[in-house]
């Protein structure tokens, strides 16, 4: 018995079990759903055939259908705007805050802790809070803007088609800033102080130090933060569910929410799969860039 345990632990047995467990997990919870999703995007699926593989193949019909829908272009551009603006603003605000907290001032640690609030709250709760803030008639934001005299009439942040998307973007920026700040803070802390001192002896002012030392030395972190930011933003679902449900009339709809609507509200499951397949392709491309940027980091 003891001999068996030993061979099991020291020999190849234990390793095999570990590998099989990890692989099994990946196959069951990642690979299978992905493959299943890909399969469904080429089939005609309805609620009754959802659980069987035996469904009529329709080739690229689902893809043609999705691309020819009148709302597709709008939702595509909404997604681009949502991801682009969110990531850009999260990065700028997060970087600015990270630089700010680099300065040694009293209560810096405390304040930084406060900024994590957004990170530890479930996105659905954040959505609920923001829906109060942004509410048209009783919202905090409208109240404040009226008080300081910026606006006279209430703005209907969540139901005005011109601003609904931007409202979600603002909430999403708030949600993503802490993550950016923490990751960039770690990067900033990794730059040795004496390198800055050497630069200041060499004649570089603060601004020159930022552009010649800080930015180039943060390349890997910036790459990681941007790619992860794009991936997280493409996953952002809860805020849409809590704030606008993609409305009014798709004015604030994006692919990830639309895919869910198609599949689980309209039961056009094949079409929903198509949208998610397209998104998977895009995320894989971004993930590739991310892996490349972290590989650069390991080399240096």
């Amino acid at each position, binding site marked *: 018995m003891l001999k068996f345990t030993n061979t099991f632990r020291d020999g190849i047995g234990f390793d095999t079990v570990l590998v099989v467990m990890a692989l099994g997990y990946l196959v069951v919870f990642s690979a299978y759903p992905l493959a299943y999703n890909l399969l469904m995007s080429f089939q005609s699926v309805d609620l009754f055939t959802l659980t069987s593989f035996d469904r009529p193949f329709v080739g690229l019909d689902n893809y043609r259908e999705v691309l020819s829908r009148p709302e597709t272009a709008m939702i595509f551009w909404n997604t681009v705007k949502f991801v682009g603006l969110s990531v850009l603003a999260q990065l700028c605000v997060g970087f600015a805050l990270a630089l700010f907290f680099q300065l040694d001032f009293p209560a810096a640690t405390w304040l930084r802790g406060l900024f994590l609030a957004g990170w530890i709250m479930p996105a659905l709760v954040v959505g609920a809070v923001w829906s109060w803030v942004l509410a048209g008639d009783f919202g905090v934001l409208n109240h404040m803007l009226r008080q300081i005299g910026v606006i006279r009439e209430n703005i209907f942040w969540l139901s005005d088609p011109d601003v609904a998307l931007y409202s979600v973007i603002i909430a999403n920026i708030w949600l993503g800033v802490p993550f950016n700040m923490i990751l960039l803070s770690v990067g900033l802390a990794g730059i*040795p102080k*004496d390198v800055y*001192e*050497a630069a200041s*002896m060499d004649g570089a002012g603060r601004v020159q130090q930022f552009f010649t030392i800080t930015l180039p030395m943060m390349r890997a972190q910036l790459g990681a933060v941007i790619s992860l930011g794009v991936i997280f933003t493409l996953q952002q679902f809860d805020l849409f569910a809590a704030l606008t449900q993609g409305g009014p009339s798709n004015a604030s709809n994006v692919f990830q929410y639309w895919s869910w609507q198609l599949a689980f509200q309209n039961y056009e499951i094949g079409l929903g799969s198509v949208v998610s397949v397209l998104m998977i392709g895009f995320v894989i491309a971004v993930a590739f860039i991310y892996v490349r940027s972290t590989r650069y980091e390991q080399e*240096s």
Partner: protein
Amino acid sequence: MTCQISLDRINKYYGAYHALRDVSLQIDQGQFVALVGPSGCGKSTLLRTIAGLEGITDGTITIAGEDVTHLAPRARDLAMVFQSYALYPHMTVRRNLTYSMRLKRRTRAEIDHAVTEITRITGLEGLLERYPRELSGGQRQRVAMGRAIIRDPKAFLFDEPLSNLDAALRVHMRAEIRKLHNRLGATSVYVTHDQIEAMTMADHVVVLRAGRVEQQGAPLDLYDRPVNRFVAGFIGSPAMNFIPATVTPDGGHVSLELPGQPVLRFGGRRPAGEAVMVGLRPEHLQTGPSPDAANRLTLPVAMIERTGAQSYVVCDTVPEVMVSAPVRVEDTDEIVLGIDPAQLHLFAPDEAGLRLDI
């Protein structure tokens, strides 16, 4: 000689901790000054206040006649070589060297010319396109030096630049830095905790303890006439032996508190019966064939260490007496030591341990 760097009663506090106390220092144009002292005495702090990397609480710093006390580092025109080298990790050697020139927007031709010159001086040929992580410790050290030299600054500041190198390379670089100094004729301030480095490289040595200047002067003056027991013990290797003693009634001899109460002449006069601390350098205890017959010590031997050129004899006494002899000492139970009265130092036995005139 014009005074290049002048410090006038510098005081520096880190919170409540008094890191520099009334430090005053005059450094002449072209001088090589070493700051030495035990760990934590404030050497780096002093150097960094000169550089402007640390503010000071009180006092004035003047560089080339200009009051720079409140100027930023980049306005002082000094170059610093850091202990860690602090090379820019994301820049090649060439870009590290030319960083300051590029900030000043110097022309391509000027930069290329300077790089050629500096690579020749520092021997960095063929390494220009490497990154710092691809260099050995000694090569990084050279890049750090080159980055300072290319600036042609008012003065060079070095903070223990050799402490990360192995012993052989350290001796080599020591000579090289000194040669470079002679050639450039620039003013240099050099921090080290290694008194040998200070003695061999500097024209002027400043000994610091707990933020205070204990003594400054030419290296051999510090060796010959240390002002107190601390400097006496710090300068010289192995360290000076200190033996408690009492001045004899005739006022010209001391009776050592060693077995047998040996009496030594010190070639001067002190009040009879005064308690003193006798300082004897290990290398001044002569083991040769005919030591001075009048001034002799016979001590039991605990151990003999031979390095080839030198023999170190540790005597079995309290306090322990160390002898450094330039000959091979045979195994023996007792050693006879001759002492030149001119090489015998007397210090007060109290905490301050000031030198007593003889």
